[in-house]
């Protein structure tokens, strides 16, 4: 489903963090939000989730997200935070089952269907063998997939991922990004990620949104956004931009 944000203003502790941010993510596409530290990338995701008081319009498939009840919203938009709280001792399966929360009656218990869906999600992410393992006995790559599993168990059509590749080595970064892409294509998910690695963002996302100082500085196809001048201006970094074999830009640092 299309995610449309119009004129979003967010203040945290009296300080404006996002100023008039607008973006449109077409259904089934992948948009990566990039920008320097403190540009408001995570804040944007949290505002879309309704976790922050904000002014402006946030719509999913034409419906106003702010007017929805939390449970309705949680059936539409799933979220994987940058540093998730993984309760000590909870098993991978039980953690995945938390993703079924929006479907379980408030004081009720999960149904056999909820359990089956959680099991199926684990199966898709090759986590079945880890289902009984406590969360504190997982490697970084496994942890990232488990958090993804919880988000997928919500069976939403929109996935918001905050830095899904943080603290992963290059192999696991690729693995997670491929996985997200394949899930997106097979389930028709609309994906919005924040991401620090600009080349990685350019390789996978259909569109990039460059946030700087709380405003959208540039938006569009990777080759259009990731230019030497834009990186110099907003990140204060000197990079060399090469067009890759598929036309997507490859960035490398240059020593000044």
């Amino acid at each position, binding site marked *: 489903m299309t995610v449309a944000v119009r004129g979003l203003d967010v203040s945290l502790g009296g300080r404006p963090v996002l100023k008039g941010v607008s973006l449109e993510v077409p*259904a*089934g596409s992948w948009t990566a939000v990039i920008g320097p530290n403190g540009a408001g990338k995570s804040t944007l995701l*949290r505002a879309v*989730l309704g*976790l922050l008081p904000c002014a402006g319009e946030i719509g999913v498939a034409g419906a106003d997200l702010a007017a929805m009840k*939390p*449970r309705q919203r*949680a*059936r539409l*938009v*799933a*979220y994987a*935070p940058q540093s*998730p*709280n993984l*309760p000590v*001792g*909870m*098993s991978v*399966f*039980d953690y995945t*089952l*938390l*993703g079924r*929360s*929006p479907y*379980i009656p*408030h*004081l*009720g*218990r*999960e149904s*056999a269907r909820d*359990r*089956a869906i959680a*099991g*199926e999600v684990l*199966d*898709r992410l*090759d986590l*079945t*063998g*880890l*289902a*009984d393992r406590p969360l504190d006995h997982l*490697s970084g*790559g*496994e942890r990232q*997939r488990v958090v993804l599993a919880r988000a997928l168990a919500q069976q939403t059509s929109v996935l918001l991922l905050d830095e899904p590749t943080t603290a992963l080595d*290059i*192999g696991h970064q*690729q*693995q997670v990004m*491929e*996985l997200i*892409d*394949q899930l997106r*294509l*097979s389930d*028709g998910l609309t994906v919005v990620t924040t991401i620090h690695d600009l080349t990685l963002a350019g390789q996978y996302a259909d569109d990039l949104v460059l946030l700087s100082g709380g405003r959208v500085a540039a938006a569009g196809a990777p080759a259009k956004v990731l230019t030497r001048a834009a990186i110099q201006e907003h990140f204060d970094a000197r990079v060399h931009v090469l067009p890759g074999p598929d036309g997507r830009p490859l960035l490398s640092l240059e020593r000044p």
Partner: protein
Amino acid sequence: MTPPDREPSPAVREDAPGDVPARPEKAPARKQDVPQDAKDVLQDTADVPQDVKDVQGAAKDVPQNAENVPQDTKGVSQGAQDVREDGEDVPQDASDVPQDAEDVPQDARDVSARRRGDVLAGPGAGPRVRGRLRPLPLVVALVLLAATLLAGLVVGAAGLPVSGILAALADKVPFVHVDSGFSVVDENVLFQLRVPRVLMAALVGGMLSMAGAGYQGVFRNPLADPYLLGAAAGAGVGATLVIVVVPGDPGYGVPLAAFAGALLGVAMAYALGSAAGRGNRAATLVLAGVAVSSFLSAVQTFMQQVKAEELQRIYSWILGGVGSADWHQLALVAPYSLVSTVVLLAHGRLLDVLSVGDEEAASLGLSAARVRLTVLLAASLATATAVAVSGLIGFVGIVVPHAVRRLAGGSYRVVLPLSLLGGAAFLELADLVARTVIAPGELPLGVVTAFVGGPFFVAVLRASRRQVET
């Protein structure tokens, strides 16, 4: 939906391994892991006669065996043999797959691909849910409670025989007539002194432990205490006020005032915490609780010093005990206990959701603030109820949930009910110690729980540190 520059891939798992760079250095570690997993499976299969469903659950975890066991649950020995064989195979498989990217053995992927269609077909199967109260721990807790209750009835100065006590209890069941051989005095000792006392100890212990577990869930901190939010200090003020103001025996005035004081203390802490900040609600609330507790303790100390001749009565209330329990008092506190028990037990799953933090819980559609307020109210009601009739009995609310967590898992759907039962048994035992150690005198109950709880707590801390280190 499909962007033009990307081809849709047919299935996730067939593509993923190919894209992963070879990481042979990971393979040896995996090799060592696998035989252990296989051993676990052997243990699980040993349990088969008790709970065949378990094996189905366990077998799912060993993907190699996934097709055999669910179809053949009756042929347990054969299933077990399959697992054993597969277990021996696994190390070889692991070494065959050097590119295994640290996660799942290669053959698990094949089997999961084959099994994929079955997943929705058999909804009852699948990995076991730890967050469920299983029959074994529940039965153990119930037996433990029954045993301690009986011990509490048997031990005492009057020397009543066990058989007589059982007969007298059976005689109370409608339409059953058993002659216990007890005199009227014996009957009175049993039914007017021991039974109420034993029930009260169980009730207070259950309330305090369950409230402790509830607070720990709300504050996401296993060291949170039922007295955290000023309940104890508030109760102290209430009880002291009545003892100081009312001459002679105030009767039920003390428990009623303690109850009101405990609720007032919690309400003050909550109001202060809510007014103070929007940021980290849980931490602000704890700080507010500390501030309110200090203030109310000062008020209580002031009143007590003004009327120093009542010092002994005040202290004997503060140190706690259930020696004065009677049926009327039990009837007084039963409704509150029932309400808080029902509310707390109903919130087990929501506390599990809350354990991922407010923000993530909100993204899962849960209003953390509402759940927190409800659980806080119910836990505070349970605490106030216990404090009102027993004074201040420490450590129960921390020690029991902690022990339950280590023995039966951390899900609040398990911790809350087992804390209720375990806490009742624990305080029953503590009361037994309190009235036998210096018989015919009695130790205050709070002293006994602190004696037991302190060292226990240190042991738990040491054990959990060791666990972290390994």
